[in-house]
C-alpha cells in the first residue's frame, strides 16, 4: 500500500545542514539530464494544471448522463470511450484529477500539520508530555491504516469529506513520530544550545531554530505520501467508502468499471492508468527531491 517512503530516516544517520541553494541548482540540472524524472516533472505540472482548471481540457460535462451512447469504445469524439451511463470517460478522468490529487494533497497537508505540531511538542517538551503524546501515537500507528480508515468512514458515513477526515486521523501519527525524532536530534545541537544561552524563548527556539532544520525529511515524506494517499483514497472508493456519485473519482471509476472489463476494457483501464501515472510521477518527483535534499543515497 505505502510506497517507497523514507519515513524511517531521521531515526539515525548524520544530520543535514540546511540545503544550500547550489544543491538545488545541481539537482535541477540533474532533472534536466535525466529524461524519466524530467518527464515525471512535466506530468506532475500537467496534473496540477488539470486539477486546477479541468474545464480547459474537455468540453464534456463529466456528470452528464447520455443513454444513447453507453459503453462506447474510444473514438475521436470520446477519446477514452464512455461509461455505463454514457458519460465521457475522458471528462471524468480529467475532473477526477482534482478529486484525487486535491484530496490527497489536503490529507497529507493536514496530517503533516497536526503530526508535526504534536511531534515537536512531544520532542521538545519531553517528560510526561512526551510520554502521553507518544502513547497515543503508538496506538494510532499500531492500527492497519486502511482498516481504521474504513471503520471511521463506516462510522461517519461514506463521502469525500469523511474519507479525508478518516485518512488524516490515521495518518498524522506517522508525522508525529518522525517530527519528534528529528526535534530530539536537532535539540541537542550547538546552535540550539547557543540560542538557548542567548535567552530565546522555547517557542522561538522551536519555530526559528529547530523546525526549519527538520523540514527536508518531512518534505520528502510528504511528497511520497501524496502518492500513497492517491492510492489509499482510490482504495476507499474501490470499497465503496469514498467519493459519492456522481462526482468523478478514479478509484470509484475503476471499482464500477471492473465488472465491465471483459466487454468494455476502456472503462476500468483509463482511470486505472490515471492512478498509475499519477502515483508514478509523484514517486519519481519525490525521489528526486529526496536525492537533492539527501545526496547520501545517490552520490
Amino acid at each position, binding site marked *: 500500500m505505502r510506497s517507497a517512503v523514507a519515513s524511517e530516516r531521521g531515526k539515525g544517520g548524520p544530520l543535514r545542514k540546511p540545503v544550500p541553494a547550489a544543491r538545488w541548482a545541481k539537482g535541477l540540472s540533474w532533472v534536466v539530464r535525466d529524461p524519466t524524472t524530467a518527464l515525471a516533472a512535466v506530468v506532475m505540472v500537467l496534473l496540477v494544471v488539470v486539477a486546477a482548471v479541468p474545464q480547459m481540457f474537455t468540453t464534456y460535462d463529466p456528470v452528464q*448522463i447520455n443513454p444513447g451512447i453507453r459503453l462506447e469504445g474510444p473514438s475521436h469524439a470520446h477519446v477514452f470511450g464512455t461509461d455505463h*451511463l454514457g458519460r465521457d470517460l475522458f471528462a471524468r478522468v480529467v475532473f477526477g484529477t482534482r478529486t484525487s490529487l486535491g484530496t490527497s494533497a489536503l490529507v497529507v497537508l493536514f496530517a503533516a500539520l497536526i503530526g508535526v505540531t504534536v511531534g515537536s511538542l512531544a520532542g521538545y517538551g519531553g517528560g510526561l508530555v512526551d510520554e502521553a503524546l507518544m502513547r497515543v501515537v503508538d496506538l494510532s500507528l499500531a492500527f492497519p491504516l486502511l482498516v481504521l480508515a474504513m471503520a471511521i468512514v463506516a462510522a461517519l458515513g461514506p463521502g469525500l469529506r469523511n474519507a479525508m477526515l478518516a485518512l488524516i486521523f490515521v495518518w498524522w501519527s506517522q508525522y508525529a513520530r518522525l517530527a519528534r525524532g528529528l526535534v530530539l536530534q536537532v535539540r541537542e545541537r550547538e546552535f540550539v544550545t547557543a540560542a538557548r544561552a542567548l535567552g530565546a524563548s522555547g517557542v522561538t527556539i522551536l519555530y526559528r531554530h529547530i523546525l526549519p532544520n527538520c523540514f527536508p525529511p518531512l518534505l520528502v515524506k510528504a511528497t511520497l505520501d501524496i502518492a500513497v494517499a492517491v492510492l489509499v483514497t482510490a482504495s476507499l472508493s474501490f470499497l465503496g467508502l469514498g467519493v459519492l456519485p456522481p462526482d468523478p473519482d478514479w478509484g470509484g471509476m475503476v471499482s464500477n468499471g471492473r465488472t465491465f472489463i471483459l466487454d468494455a476494457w476502456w472503462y476500468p483501464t483509463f482511470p486505472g492508468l490515471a492512478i498509475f501515472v499519477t502515483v508514478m510521477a509523484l514517486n519519481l518527483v519525490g525521489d528526486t527531491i529526496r536525492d537533492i535534499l539527501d545526496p547520501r543515497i545517490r552520490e
Partner: protein
Amino acid sequence: MPPHPDHSDALQGQPTRREVLRRGVALSLSMTAARGLLAAGGAAVLTPTQSSAAQVARPRSKATGKQAILNFGAVQEPSTLDPHLSTSVADTMLKNIYEPLVDTDTDTGRVVPTLAVSWSVARDGLSVIFKLRGGVLFHDGTPFNANAAIVNFKRCIALKSYIPEAFDAIDSLEALDNLTLRVKLKRVINPWVSMLSLNPKMISPTAIEKQTQGGDLAKTWLAQNTVGTGAYMHTRWDRGSNLVWEAFPKYWRGWEGRHVTTVNNRIVLEPGTQRLLLEAGDLDVEMNYTQDALPALRRNPNLNVVGVDLPNLLYIRLNNFTGPTADVRVRKAISYGFDYSAYTKLLGFDRPRADMPIPVQLFGPGYRAVKIPYLTYDPDMGRKLLKEAGHGNGFQMNLFHDPGVPQKAILAEYFQSAMSRLGIKVKIVVEPFVNILARGADQQSQKNWNTAVHTWILYTAPLYPDASSFLLRMYTPYPAAVRNLLGYNSPQVARLTQEAVAQKDFAAATKLYWQANLQIVQDCPDLMLDRSIQFTILRKWVKGHRPHALEPWRWTYWDAWKEM
C-alpha cells in the same frame, strides 16, 4: 410515452420469453384458483400429486464425479444456518435443507403442500387442520410428525421468526393424532396459510432438545449445523469459501431419476470473478451478474441465460411526512419528470414497468385488464404542478440507496439528472440498507426535513404469495409496516387492509386489496419503477432447473442434474 403495453417486451428475442409469459399467466390463474378452492367450501382440501408414502432409496449415483457435483455461485454467505432466524437470500438457500408445511410452487408461485399433504380451514376461519405427510424422516433418522411440527411452531413463536404476525395469532397447537395437527387462531388472518411458506421450516425436535444450551433453543448449535427433512444435508463449511451440501439418502421425494448429489455453494461475491469462473466452467450456476454482461453471456455457446419476471418491484419512496414531497402535487410532479424509457435505455435493456404499487401478478387475471393511471413522462406538467405547489424554483432533496446493487446506482444517477430538469437538486447518499432502516426507525427525525430521508430506493418482493405482503410492509402505518418509514399514511388504505386481512373469504379479501391498491395510486406515495427480471446463468450442461416464479434467489438443487 405510452404505458408499457406488455412486459413481454422486456424479453424480446430471448429464449425464455414464451416460458416467462406462460408462467406469468399461470401464476395469476393458479393463485386465484387456490383461493377460490379454499374459500368456496369453507373447508376445501388440496391433495398433492406426490404419494405420501416416503420413497426411501439410496441416491442413485448414475452421475459420478464432476457430474454429481453442482458448483453453485452463492449470492451471499449465510450468516446462520438456523432456518427460523435466517433471512432473505440465505432463507431461500436453506429450503434445500429444511422444509415448511406448505411451500411456494416453483412454476406457479402458489402455495402447495410440502410436509403437510393437505389442510382445511374451519368455517369460522379460526381453526386450521393439517394432515401431515407420513414416512418423512429427519436427517438424524427421527420421524416427522405432529409433535415435531408443534415443537417447531413453538420455537418460531419464541424466536419471533418470520412472519411474526402469523405466530402472534396462534392460540393453541394440538396433535389430533400422529399426523394431524390442529392450530387454533386468535383472529382470522386471511393469508395465514400462505405465511407458513416461510416458517416454520421443520427442524428435528430431538436435535433441538439435545443441543439446547442455557435455554437458547439450540440457536448456537443450529447456526452451523442442520437437521432437516430436505433433500440435502449440510456437511462442510469452509468459511468464506464453500458450503458443501450432500444428498440425504432417505429424502421423502426419493432419488429416482437424475439429481445432483453434492452441491458446492461457492462464496465468490465479486460479480466479475463469478463470471470468470462461470465462463471457465469452474461454476455451473450464477445469479450475481451485472446487466451489461448479459449480452456477452448470451453469446457464449456454453451458457444458458434464463430470465423470469418476478413480482419484485423497484420503488423510489418519497417522504410523505414533511417538506415539499409531503404535497401530493410535488410527488406527482416527480413522477411526471421521470422518463421511463430514458431510464430503461440507461439500464441497457427494456424492463417491464411496475404496473401498480402491489404487483398485479398477485391479484389474478380479472384485475389484469384494469386501466392503470400511469403518470407518464411530461416534464411540462411536472413543472406546472411544482409551480402550483409553490416550488416553481425547485428545491433540494436527498436520495438514499444501499450499495452493491448496480441498478440502484444507475437509477439514482438517472433520477438525479431527471430531477435537475425540474429544478430539483438531488443529493445521492449511499448507505447500507440497515442504516436507512435505522434512520427511519427514528420517526421524529423523518418528520423534520432537515434530518429526514427525503427519497429512498428499494426493492420489495412478496414474502409470501399474497397482496397483503405488500400492504402490511409498505403501506400501512409504521412500525407495523416496517418499510413504511417515510410516513405514507392513508386511513382508508389502513382500514381496507385491516378489513381484507380479517376476511375469511379470499375473493372478498382480494377485492379489498384491489381497492387499497387504487387508493395508493391516487396518493402517489412512491415513484413506481420496474419489476425485476431475475436472470440465472447456467452452463448448458446443467439440466432440469426451472426458475422460481416468486422468490428471487430460490434454487431447488434437487431438480437439477448435469449432462457433461
